[in-house]
């Protein structure tokens, strides 16, 4: 039942995304701009990582894509609530969890599609990385997308207006981006900043994907990144489930 219901909600949501067209590409615009206009600045700089500057920057941009794309996913449910669509579905016997998972999987699909576009553009700009590492990178994008989209939908279902939603999400997104070393590795940072960045879960994912792009799949970074990503996703889906199950939400 859960599987069928999830497939049903997923199908409806994906058709909505496909119908709007622009939405499929909108999220990838910012990372592409960074790739084209910021990436070339780094090619000659000593970033301290293994391999080229593209192997450092592209993992960051991939996670930036997932960070912003998934964090704002819940915006759509505020509009659907106002249209009455959410309650209309909640009075049917459909699984509450499916109402969350169908949406989260739709966002994950769209973000993976955008991630592929971004990597293709990066290859054209000069990125060279092992195929395995690129696939591992997509795996982390998917995990982060599932986690953040779940939290975002939970928030979207809880708040009454878009005006409450946006500042909260921005308040999470910007510090996460700056403190996780998305743009430049935290190994360049002074000790206090590096220490502070370890509080941000995203930091561990960034380190893991950078290692994957450099071809090292068994490093401590990879293990820690994987643990944090999976743990965070489990926690976030649990929170999302609780909110979607609560009758009054």
């Amino acid at each position, binding site marked *: 039942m859960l599987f069928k*219901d999830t497939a*049903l909600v997923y199908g*409806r949501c994906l*058709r*909505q995304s496909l*119908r*709007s067209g622009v939405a499929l590409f909108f999220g990838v615009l910012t990372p592409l701009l960074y790739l084209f206009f910021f990436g070339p600045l780094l090619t000659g700089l000593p970033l301290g990582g293994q391999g080229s500057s593209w192997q450092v920057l592209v993992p960051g941009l991939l996670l930036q894509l997932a960070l912003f794309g998934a964090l704002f996913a819940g915006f759509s449910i505020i509009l*659907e609530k*106002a*249209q*009455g*669509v959410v*309650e*209309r*579905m*909640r*009075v*049917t*016997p*459909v699984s509450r969890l499916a109402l969350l998972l169908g949406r989260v999987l739709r966002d994950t699909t769209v973000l993976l599609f955008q991630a592929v576009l971004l990597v293709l553009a990066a290859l054209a700009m000069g990125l060279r990385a092992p195929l395995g590492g690129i696939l591992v990178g997509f795996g982390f994008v998917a995990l982060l997308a599932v986690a953040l989209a779940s939290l975002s939908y939970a928030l979207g279902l809880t708040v009454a207006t878009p005006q409450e939603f946006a500042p909260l999400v921005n308040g999470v997104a910007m510090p996460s981006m700056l403190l996780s070393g998305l743009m430049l590795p935290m190994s360049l940072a002074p000790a206090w900043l590096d220490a502070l960045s370890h509080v941000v879960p995203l930091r561990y994912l960034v380190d893991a994907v950078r290692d994957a792009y450099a071809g090292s799949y068994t490093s401590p970074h990879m293990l820690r990144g994987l643990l944090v990503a999976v743990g965070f996703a489990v926690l976030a889906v649990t929170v999302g489930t609780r909110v979607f199950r*609560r*009758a*009054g939400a």
Partner: protein
Amino acid sequence: MAAVISAAGLARTFRTKRGPVQAVRGIDLTVHEGEILGFLGPNGAGKTTTLRMLTTLLAPTGGTATVAGCDLVTDPVGVRRACGCVAQSGGVDGQITVREELVTQGRLYRLTKAEAVERARELAQDLGLDGLLDRRTAALSGGQRRRLDIAMALTHRPRVLFLDEPTTGLDPGSRADLWDLVRRLRDEHGTTVFLTTHYLDEADALADRLVVVDHGVVVAEGTPSALKREHAGSADASLQDAFLAITGRRPAPADAAPVAI
């Protein structure tokens, strides 16, 4: 007649920053099978909150209720199977076609793909939406939109249909059509209809029995003529007079300046 909805002391308190708000203090209510019940009350009386509890959208903080024999709290899925609900705002996506919304709704009620397609066709025919199946819902008129909302709620042939202010914003012709539709549902399928409205002529014309709530409790109930006799002095009085006498509210003076323009 058997009771299809019964509530005892049903209550909901919201916790807010400024302390608890008792939206519904304790509703006792019985609705019989095949009855059209008008649920009336001033704005803020607790009508929508009660309706949301009876349709499992909101958990009660006190009291109990059953719908079609299923308890709201212990068997919400049973309640959902037995009832259809049309919210004030409706519940369709403007960019999606009438057909896709109807088919999706059928699938949400666990019909197979083929059954859902067939049911969508049937409902469209029954509710006068035949020619509109491939139209986006945003392109429907107000009356057509309302019929679609009701078609969606009828997908699984529910025993109880909840309608929250179903004719608000409709032109007189569409309102009359909707009244006919509600009567037909009851006559042909024995559907119990629980409707809230602010239009007292609608309540008078359509409902077999009225329940008036105010400040979160039931303050009067009976047939429209009984309420008029009891509260407005005569069966020929208007329901408006009876309603104002029951709720103790007077209409605003005609010359009062509007609060905002």
